[in-house]
């Protein structure tokens, strides 16, 4: 059992998620070109063939692999060499609990399209995210460079602060879906929600329009504030602009990865891009219905198509459609992060800290209180 499971896990995490990272460097270049009204990365070619710049990631990797692997004098050699790995591993393994498809039943065989079906999924994500701090902190300290150390300091303060609010901002979502397992959350969002349902529940009004006007039962419609707060926190955890204070190119040169060169620098770069994928997957599963298709639940598809083609075919069709829906939402969230990165100006360091402790923390706690109150009222009324 373990060997096959381990191989499958490694394949999905390293090959699929890791393989997306070079592709995302290309998307980032293209997005920045669009935002700055340039044509963008289109120079790397093989025999005159440029393929809209798709060879650039390949050229990047070749360049990074060919550069000298430099360790500065006075650095802690072992930690300096290990730090990029310590940064990259949490980024890669975090994807393990994010569902890329639903739960399907073929005869007596059940298929759940997620690497790990652990029922403590979100706790796992929080735990892994909190370990991601070490890569940056160790990298900066082991480089024996004042600028790097400043970057480490900033990174540890920023990431610990945003970890606190990252957990708190999601409590509302846990209350709504009553689970920590991302697959169950995605399943719960595979339905619709009556927008004016509160008229029926609290005032006993009944009108066909109340049943008729529906939204997909996505987390973002239950918890719009949590969506904003969590997106802010998790983007600050990833340290990309506008939250790139640990790198702060205009103040501390390149911060924690200043003394890194070649593929070890590339690993820091990669782990940020893999985290972009993980963030997109998390936002999709928590707030955008995961793999579900709006207004077209699994039961509807299986019942509708299954009548003509058989249940097995209909379930297989569901697998494909749901995977496509997940990839579409994932792509949209990746694009959204790229667009934000090229739109917003950078924060000052005190602004980042104030935003966390004076804005997001009180708002998250208020969100928990209001969610609890509303849920109690709905339970009383129902």
């Amino acid at each position, binding site marked *: 059992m373990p060997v096959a499971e381990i191989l499958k896990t490694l394949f999905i995490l390293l090959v699929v998620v890791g393989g997306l990272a070079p592709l995302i460097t290309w998307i980032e270049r293209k997005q920045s070109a669009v935002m700055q009204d340039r044509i963008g990365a289109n120079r790397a070619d093989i025999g005159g063939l440029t393929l809209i710049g798709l060879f650039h990631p390949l050229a990047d990797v070749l360049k990074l692999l060919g550069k000298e692997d430099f360790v500065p004098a006075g650095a802690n050699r072992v930690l300096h060499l290990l730090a990029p790995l310590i940064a990259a591993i949490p980024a890669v393994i975090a994807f393990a609990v994010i569902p890329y498809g639903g739960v399907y039943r073929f005869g007596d065989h059940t298929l759940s399209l997620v690497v790990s079906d652990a029922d*403590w999924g979100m706790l796992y994500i*929080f*735990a892994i995210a909190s370990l991601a701090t070490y890569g940056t*902190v160790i990298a900066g300290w082991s480089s024996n460079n004042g600028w790097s150390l400043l970057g480490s*300091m900033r990174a540890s303060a920023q990431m610990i602060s945003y970890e606190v609010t990252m957990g708190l901002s999601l409590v509302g979502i846990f209350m709504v879906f009553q689970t920590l397992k991302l697959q169950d959350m995605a399943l719960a969002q595979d339905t619709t929600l009556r927008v004016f349902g509160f008229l029926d529940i609290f005032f006993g009004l009944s009108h066909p329009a109340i049943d008729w006007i529906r939204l997909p039962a996505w987390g973002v419609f239950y918890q719009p504030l949590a969506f904003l707060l969590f997106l802010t926190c998790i983007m600050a955890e990833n340290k990309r602009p506008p939250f790139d204070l640990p790198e702060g190119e205009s103040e501390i040169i390149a911060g924690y990865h200043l003394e890194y060169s070649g593929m070890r620098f590339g690993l820091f770069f990669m782990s940020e891009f893999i985290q972009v994928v993980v963030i997109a997957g998390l936002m999709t599963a928590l707030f955008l219905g995961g793999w579900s298709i709006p207004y077209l639940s699994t039961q509807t598809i299986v019942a509708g198509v299954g009548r003509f083609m058989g249940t097995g075919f209909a379930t297989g069709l569901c697998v494909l459609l749901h995977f496509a829906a997940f990839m579409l939402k994932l792509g949209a969230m990746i694009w959204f992060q790229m667009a934000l990165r090229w739109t917003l100006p950078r924060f000052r360091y005190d602004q980042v800290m104030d935003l966390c402790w004076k804005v997001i923390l009180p708002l998250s706690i208020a969100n928990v209180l209001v969610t609890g109150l509303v849920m109690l009222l709905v339970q009383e009324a129902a």
Partner: protein
Amino acid sequence: MSFAAILFYLFGALAVLFALSMLLNVHNTVAGALSLVVTMVSLAAIYVLLEAHFVAAIQIMVYAGAIVVLFLFVVMLLNLRDDDFAPGRQRLVRVAGALVGVFALAQFLRWLAPGLPELPAVPAGFGGHRAVGIALYTDYVLLVELIALLLLAAIVGALVLAKRKLDS
């Protein structure tokens, strides 16, 4: 031996080894703190093997992810060197440590002599977030509230102290 048992002994050995490494790295504080992290993560892995997922996640989030990072933060700010540590008492501590170590090792070997025991089975539903949550907010709700009050008092105290320093 089952796969879980192999993992248990692996992470148990890691936890003990890096706890030792933390103690032996008295003069290299950063290496000591990082050894502590490995011990914490290994303990979390053992909790996972015991199906205590909630405790495992909290162990990593709070101890490995927050508290030791703060230790590191302070250690890096102080930037201690070897000669910052006073020498005294070293010999006495070493002799006492060696004696205790030999005694512990002897006990450990005596316990190991019959062979490595298998892991006992864990009751269903043990240690999950549901079980822990229900226990905390029903049987132990008074203690939870008291701890919350204590932490609040600590936060207010820290704020008052810091503010007085800022004002003057």
